[in-house]
């Protein structure tokens, strides 16, 4: 803190008038010290920022706070404000403002640097030099600029938008042309206060965690097992056998799910076989089928996910250090000891991030039970069934009702849970702690 203050004092003492003028007119320091091209760019940035602010920036920022004041009425020909668009444009305006503040700061800093260079008799880099360095020393900046801008617009903006929605009353009957308002933490309060909510939330969360752990473990070991099996030297026609899981992988997930739903339905082939052998039809996925539906869900998810793990593992397995296995064999280690002491540590090290991705993917696996067993509300559950995951419940609560704000609030809670789990697991994992083990 102190050093910052000292820096400022030093700057105020030493900076020349044109550099100080840069606070008011961007690029003036650059003009003074001969970097005209750069100075011109800074000046243009300032002018376009002022034009942007006048033309829409200021009204966008005000709109961000008010979320609209004029109610649209198509019958009366009143165009009105669209709160959702206003919020989006407001966020965009904030991003522009922050970007400008950054450039503004850069402008003063770089002008001051120029002054020092000139004072020390060093040559002043021209715009051409700067551009050339973008293709050379600072090439990373040039290459990263586009992705960063893309990420800001296509990832950061929607995420901020979604988070902010959780603090509004958007949804239900309040959709454009109605005006949306900020409501603070009301949505979160609602989730906590509702008595019906807590028991269902507890039940669904515990099943959701169990599901995520079980399905991730099952998929992971089944995938590695399949990869090891197909990696064995005695297996002939590996490419041929590998093609089958890949085929399952290539078919879109929801088609697979609908096919399995039909297989296990009352009129499906499995029940047909049972009936033709004199049995009675079994409701594998119906109302009373809690655990059989859950197990079918696990296995079907396995069917869909194992091929990708298998492909991943096949790649990693080929990177194993064969000499380690040779040494282990000489030391008398059996097949299982080799698997647990050599293969698994290596695989876990290499695949922890993927494993986490799988865990999060399974935690939020919307499709499985939506397609296999959607459209049921069970006794003891509030607008959910006993196979629904949090994400399905979120869908029932928010999308069917159009309660976007509540949906956003629940998503934030899910995000907190999953990010906490992934952070803890990742920080504790060998991939993070022993980064150089296998390098």
């Amino acid at each position, binding site marked *: 803190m102190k050093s910052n203050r000292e820096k400022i004092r030093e700057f105020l003492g030493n900076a020349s008038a044109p550099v100080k003028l840069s606070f008011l007119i961007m690029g003036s320091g650059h003009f003074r010290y001969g970097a005209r091209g750069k100075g011109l760019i800074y000046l243009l940035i300032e002018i376009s920022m002022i034009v942007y602010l006048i033309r829409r920036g200021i009204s966008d920022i005000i709109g961000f706070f008010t979320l609209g004041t004029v109610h649209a009425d198509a019958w009366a020909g009143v165009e009105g404000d669209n709160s959702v668009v206003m919020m989006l444009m407001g966020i965009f305006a904030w991003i522009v403002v922050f970007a400008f503040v950054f450039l503004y700061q850069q402008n003063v800093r770089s002008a001051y640097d120029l002054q020092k260079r000139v004072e020390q008799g060093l040559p002043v880099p021209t715009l051409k030099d700067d551009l050339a360095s973008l293709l050379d020393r600072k090439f990373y900046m040039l290459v990263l600029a586009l992705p960063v801008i893309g990420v800001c617009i296509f990832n950061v903006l929607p995420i901020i938008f979604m988070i902010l929605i959780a603090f509004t009353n958007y949804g239900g009957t309040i959709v454009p042309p109605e005006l949306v308002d900020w409501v603070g933490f009301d949505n979160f309060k609602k989730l906590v206060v509702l008595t019906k909510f807590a028991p269902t939330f507890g039940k669904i969360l515990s099943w959701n965690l169990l599901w995520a752990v079980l399905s991730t473990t099952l998929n992971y070991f089944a995938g590695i097992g399949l990869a090891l099996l197909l990696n064995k030297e005695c297996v002939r026609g590996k490419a041929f056998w590998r093609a089958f899981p890949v085929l399952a992988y290539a078919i879109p997930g929801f088609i697979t799910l609908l096919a399995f739903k039909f297989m296990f339905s009352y009129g499906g082939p499995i029940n047909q076989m049972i009936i033709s052998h004199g049995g009675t039809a079994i409701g594998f996925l119906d*109302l009373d089928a809690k655990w059989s539906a859950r197990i079918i869900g696990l296995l079907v998810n396995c069917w869909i996910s194992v091929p990708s793990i298998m492909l991943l593992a096949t790649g990693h397995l080929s990177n194993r250090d064969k000499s380690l296995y040779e040494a282990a064999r000489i030391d008398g280690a059996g097949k299982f000891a080799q698997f647990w002491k050599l293969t698994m540590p290596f695989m876990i090290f290499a695949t922890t991030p993927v494993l986490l991705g799988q865990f999060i993917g399974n935690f939020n696996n919307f499709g499985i039970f939506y397609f296999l067993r959607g459209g049921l509300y069970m006794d003891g559950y509030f607008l959910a069934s006993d196979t629904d995951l949090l994400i399905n419940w979120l869908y029932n*609560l928010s999308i069917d009702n159009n309660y976007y704000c509540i949906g956003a609030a629940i998503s934030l809670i899910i995000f907190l849970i999953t990010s906490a789990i992934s952070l803890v697991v990742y920080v504790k994992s060998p991939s993070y702690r022993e980064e150089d083990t296998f390098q």
Partner: protein
Amino acid sequence: MRKKLVAACLLACMVFTTTACGSGSDSKAASKSGSDGTGSALFTGELEENVTIQVLENDTAISEGYFQELIDAFNEEYKDKGIQAVDANMDQYLDLANDGPYGYGPDVLYQANDVIMKYAEGKHILPLPVEDLDCYDQIPESAWQAYQTEVDGKTYTCGVPVNVQAPMLYYRKDLLPDDWESTWDKDSDGVPDMTENWSSMYEYSVARHSEDSSKYGYMKSLNDMYFASGFLFSYGGYIFGDNNTDASDIGFAAGEAEKGANVLSQLASAMNEDCIDDTITTNAYSKLADGTYFATISTPDVYSTFLAELEKEYVSEGLSEDDAAAKAKENLVMTSLPQLPESGDLTDGSTEMIDSKSMGGVNGYAISSYTKAPNACLEFVKFATSYEMTKLRAETLGVAPAREDAAEEVGGVSKEIYQNLDNGNIILMPSITEVSQIWTPGQTFFIDLAKDVYRPESEKKYTSLESMKAGLEDMCNQINEAITTLQ
């Protein structure tokens, strides 16, 4: 060199994306100026000249060629005024509320009443001067009501009903017992009893199945709320109170609705487990054709699918295509739903019968608030709902017109449906958004009811009318919670 190449590519991408953004904002700005000054007062009667009207029609109407005939006739008539109607060529599931304000979307749209009235809440469609239309007196009040909305104490009508959808009974004449005229026609009216009342249908279903265990009588999945809820309505149940506008009053358990649940449960007992999930709904076409099922219920718009499936079956039995088509047409019968015993018991032999009610919908035309030519649009709606066009639509598509004169002229099933609507036997789907919450709780109850029939005696939940009433009340509570909890 390579770096320069990468840099050039990146620059090109950047330029490309910025131009894309630019053109987007341009079109938005352009459309803004166009949507100024619209309103119901705009129906001045002065036709806008040299305009093109984008019409969003029903997919079947387009594929069957009716829509082409309609716009050809309209364009011919209004050629000298320069008004032209064209296919909007947009998705049926468009979102007028979000797209309309930005100038995207049709001028005239043809949709189901619940879809259209969703737009009325946000005033995205215009209130129409329906009293001036020549169809006004021909369409029953209940159909108009489906398009009415109340704003500031005043009632507006936002759509013009065109055709009515309601469940119908499909059965195969050639699967009737040979001696049905002597054994299954007690009232000697030449119509088999099982297609006239559910008690006989149940009796026949049991008889047919016991004769040959692979054959069934009436079959229909219970899990479909749209078809199952009609049984509740017949005994006094309803969806929402105050003419389907008050979502705080949910009436699936009202009156003696439990009797309807009991009838459904009895019918399910003459089926098999397939009635618990949607198995029967998906295989009804082929199973009716191969004679496994004798009857089922469905909407009139799938008549052609049933017919085609039956034709195929006859052809596979060795008939020529023409003979098969004629025989299928002769044997596949679509008729109004059978009557129900007032007692709510299909087995007690009572002869006191009441009419079956059913859930239905009415499709119609509406005009977008964002159109630039409201008067020309209204002219198109007038033209498309005229007697000639409604009749042509009914004849081409086999749909039931909401106009009395057209229904009368087309006759047959169309007339029956019209009469059912007129008598109040078709409960039109509510036009308020809360209706989206009835489906899952309803489906769960009906699945539970069907499943109960196949549960072991000791595990049965619905053994009496009281328990069925309790089940229905549970379902109403769930719907109420779904609607109100997060409000």
